[in-house]
């Protein structure tokens, strides 16, 4: 099993550009999450989803959008990139009824 996969690993964007961070899991987990981690800080929840077609905002949703058309995929969209969105982005998933989240390898995004 691949677990949770994320692409790309690294990306540099210019201010105002848009991009989609991809996340996929092959564990048939209902719950998926997007976090960002700024240097020296813990992870902050951006958006989460409890199943296909259902998404909800986390702690820091501004500037981001998500969709969940399938159980496996949970892409995160940045529409107008800003320097404040420079961070490492982690996707995670968990099975319904389980509190343990499994994390992808992360995407390091720099906005200049």
């Amino acid at each position, binding site marked *: 099993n691949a677990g949770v996969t994320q692409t790309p690993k690294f990306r540099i964007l210019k201010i105002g550009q848009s991009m989609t961070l991809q996340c996929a899991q092959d564990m048939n987990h209902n719950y998926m999450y997007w976090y960002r981690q700024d240097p020296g800080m*813990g992870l902050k929840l951006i958006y989460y989803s409890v199943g296909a077609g259902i998404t909800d905002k986390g702690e820091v949703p501004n500037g981001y959008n998500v969709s969940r058309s399938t159980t496996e995929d949970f892409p995160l969209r940045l529409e107008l990139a800003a320097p404040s969105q420079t961070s490492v982005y982690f996707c995670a998933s968990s099975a319904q009824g389980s*509190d343990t989240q499994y*994390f992808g390898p992360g995407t390091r995004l720099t906005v200049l």
Partner: protein
Amino acid sequence: EDKVVQSPLSLVVHEGDTVTLNCSYEVTNFRSLLWYKQEKKAPTFLFMLTSSGIEKKSGRLSSILDKKELSSILNITATQTGDSAIYLCAVLGGTASKLTFGTGTRLQVTL
């Protein structure tokens, strides 16, 4: 607002030492507390604690939850250089498995 505080923020020890990392929390509708180890990339799961006073152990690592004190400790005995990492504490509260993370304790084990 849910809050998780970890201490110390960073720690440098010699190989063979024993360390204790602390985590305290204020979370609505507490469900469980999780410890993760983060090296260069993604956090990897260590323990999940739901009941007070029951120690979870994995090799040289152990952890216990105190729900009365709203806290948990993570112990590492006979530390090795491979234990060098950031240790993250996260608490699950409310519904939909939303984790609130602390800022982590950065542990460095030197020879």
